[in-house]
């Protein structure tokens, strides 16, 4: 079975005892492991090669950061490079300034175009658009019926085009209808086709020339293997796609095709499909995809970010406290202040794997405003209370609430969160001080 990349690297570097930094030898070793992991994840072998070359160069050409172990350094380079390839921000749909905007949805047979069109229609309607749907799949049996049913399910309007069976004529008629009836988007589902089918690829070019779409979305199956580069490259070369939708990510495919497609087209992944229902569409977050490819939540990035922000002495003091179970509310407040330096809290929590104690923490839905309240609450405590939360009884809670302009409920909640935090921080203590991946973190890694 596929070994988690990180675990592999940990093992790899453990065998290289006494080597505290990156050398040509241990980098070679690490690159072999990463290469294997990416190939297992179905990233195209040429894309993998370029990728490894870049990471290797980074590993060998950088100043060693003493706070990080060799394994962590390598992983951070890998992650950075993955994010650089996939793009570091969510990409949005582009609409034309003169509506109706035309969206052309294209791809291989069975990749999930029709289902995706239904999902996009629903998403657009939720975001204030008025799409008109059209199927120009005049080839596959019952393809147009399928889109009609789906349109009906999501309450979207579809251009029936009865009696018409020419894709271009259908599209032109639907475009006229969209302009006349005030639709701001014409969303076109096209027939699945092979990228080497010259005639059908030509049909798409003609549609593109005549309709001037604002988006050409290439739909690709997350389970696609090595061939992803060929189909994506050919579709892009002939049509100039503007974005990618990666479907069927609700399965257990690692989705290396995302990397391959991005590498050969340079176009962003705009949405991912995560189920058969119309609402199973999500914006694409490159960092989550990276976690998936690496086979773990992005714990390391959090640890590393923490390492950049926390200074080592303080961290060691903290670890000491955690070990002795002396992590007080005062320390909690310090941590909160430090954490806020790391960035928005939801982003930090987003980096954690969604398992175990961490899951509850994420569900707690802590927002920034709450953080300010939290600080106010802790500020209203007496030093004794901060050092020993056990003594904070009902009476004290009331006083604290009054003093901080919050409610007793909020004070209760904070104390609960503090307890959770204590648990979490405890499990991370090792790495904060020692610059290692703590072994007990392994239980947060997804099971294979």
């Amino acid at each position: 079975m596929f070994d988690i990349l990180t675990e592999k690297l940990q093992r790899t570097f453990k065998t290289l005892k006494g080597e505290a930094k990156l050398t040509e030898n241990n980098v070679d070793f690490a690159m072999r492991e990463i290469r294997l992991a990416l190939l297992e994840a179905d990233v195209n072998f040429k894309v993998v090669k370029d990728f490894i070359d870049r990471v290797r160069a980074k590993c060998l050409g950088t100043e060693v950061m003493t706070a990080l172990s060799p394994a962590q350094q390598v992983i951070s380079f890998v992650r950075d490079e993955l994010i650089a390839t996939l793009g570091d921000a969510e990409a949005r749909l582009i609409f034309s300034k003169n509506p109706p905007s035309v969206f052309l949805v294209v791809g291989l047979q069975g990749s999930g175009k029709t289902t995706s069109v239904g999902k996009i229609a629903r998403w657009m309607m939720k975001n204030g658009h008025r799409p008109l749907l059209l199927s120009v799949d005049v080839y596959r049996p019952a393809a147009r019926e399928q889109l009609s049913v789906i349109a009906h399910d999501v309450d979207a309007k579809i251009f029936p085009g009865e009696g018409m069976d020419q894709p271009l004529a259908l599209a032109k008629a639907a475009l006229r209808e969209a302009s006349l009836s005030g639709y701001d988007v014409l969303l076109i589902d096209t027939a699945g086709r092979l990228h080497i089918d010259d005639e059908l690829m030509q049909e798409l070019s003609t549609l593109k020339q005549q309709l001037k779409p604002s988006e050409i979305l290439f739909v690709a199956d997350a389970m696609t293997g090595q061939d992803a580069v060929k189909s994506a490259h050919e579709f892009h070369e002939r049509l100039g796609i503007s974005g990618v939708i990666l479907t069927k990510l609700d399965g257990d495919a690692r989705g290396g095709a995302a990397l391959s497609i991005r590498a050969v087209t340079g176009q962003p992944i705009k949405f991912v499909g995560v189920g058969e229902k119309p609402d199973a569409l999500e914006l694409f977050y490159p960092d989550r995809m990276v976690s998936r490819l690496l086979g773990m939540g992005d714990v390391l990035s959090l640890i590393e970010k923490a390492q950049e922000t926390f200074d080592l002495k303080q961290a060691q003091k903290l670890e000491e406290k955690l070990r002795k179970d002396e992590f007080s509310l005062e320390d909690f407040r310090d941590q909160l202040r430090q954490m806020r330096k790391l960035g928005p809290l939801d982003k930090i929590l987003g980096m954690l794997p969604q398992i175990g104690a961490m899951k509850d923490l994420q569900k707690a839905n802590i927002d920034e405003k709450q953080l300010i309240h939290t600080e106010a609450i802790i500020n209203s405590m007496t030093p004794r209370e901060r050092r020993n939360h056990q003594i904070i009884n009902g009476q004290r809670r009331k006083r604290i609430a009054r003093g901080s302009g919050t409610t007793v409920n909020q004070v209760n909640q904070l104390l609960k969160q503090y307890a959770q935090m204590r648990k979490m921080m405890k499990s991370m203590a090792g790495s904060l001080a020692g610059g290692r991946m703590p072994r007990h973190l392994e239980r947060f890694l997804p099971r294979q």
Partner: protein
Amino acid sequence: MRPYVESCMILPFTKDKAVEDKKSGFFSKLRAAVTKTRDVLNTPIESIFTFKKEIDKSTLEELEMALIGADIGPATTAHIVEKIRDQASRQQLTEVGQVKALIRNELLAILQGENSRPVVMQQKPHVIIIVGVNGVGKTTTIGKLANKFKNDGLSVKVCAADTFRAAAIEQLEIWGQRAGVEIIRQKHGTDPSAVVFDALQSARAAQSDVVIVDTAGRLHTKHNLMSELEKMKRVASREVPGAPHEVLLIIDAVTGQNGVQQAREFTKAAAVTGIVLTKLDGTAKGGVVVAIAKELNIPIQYVGVGEKIDDLIPFNAEEFVDSLFD
């Protein structure tokens, strides 16, 4: 190569000339399709062997990459390369062509050198359930299979047990018409097992030879949907002894290493008896079936090579292995 129905015991039949002709023409058609690609990313394995005569480390590496590029997967590839490395040094092979032959043999060994394994149709009706993840070509394959059996002189019914996907029933209906076979259907949303029950009842009454059941595409990770398949199987076996006689898993040739996981899970839930590899008319090689054969030993019965009704041919291991090297 022995065509699938040749060993069919319940009915005599005449050899399907069209399929025979098609077979020999197929890989040349495939080759033509591949050369048509303007894709610069394609590195045919042949070029490795024509440029380099002597084997060395980098030859093996490139070879490894070519196998991985065909979706055979890093693990199975490593296994093959390891094996031939040993053999090559033991036999002191120096010619690249000889090494290539070793690889070819190794691949054939994994596929057990088997072409489509003849299935003996002993029971009437012979029940085939078609399963697979979404969009791999289940319904299309059913249209092609129904047509093939019909041409072989068998009476066929298709069963629309995909009651979930929009217009799935209508799609199968059109394929039924194209093949000229009867479709057993119920309303969208009906319990698929109930449609299976119906189809088998009606097939028994009509003394049909073959029933092919279309099922909704499902990801192998969805437990409830996988147990729905188990239920369909149970219902089938209650209605017809020994049914389903075949459970064919459809694998799309573009599938990467996830195909192994698909085969594992579908085998667990539905005891897959054979594989149909679809969409081989594209540029994907479908090498994942090698990894599947190695681990699960499931025979590949047919390959799909297009969207037309006769674009289905019996699997031939040698031709398939050769196409991996194209």
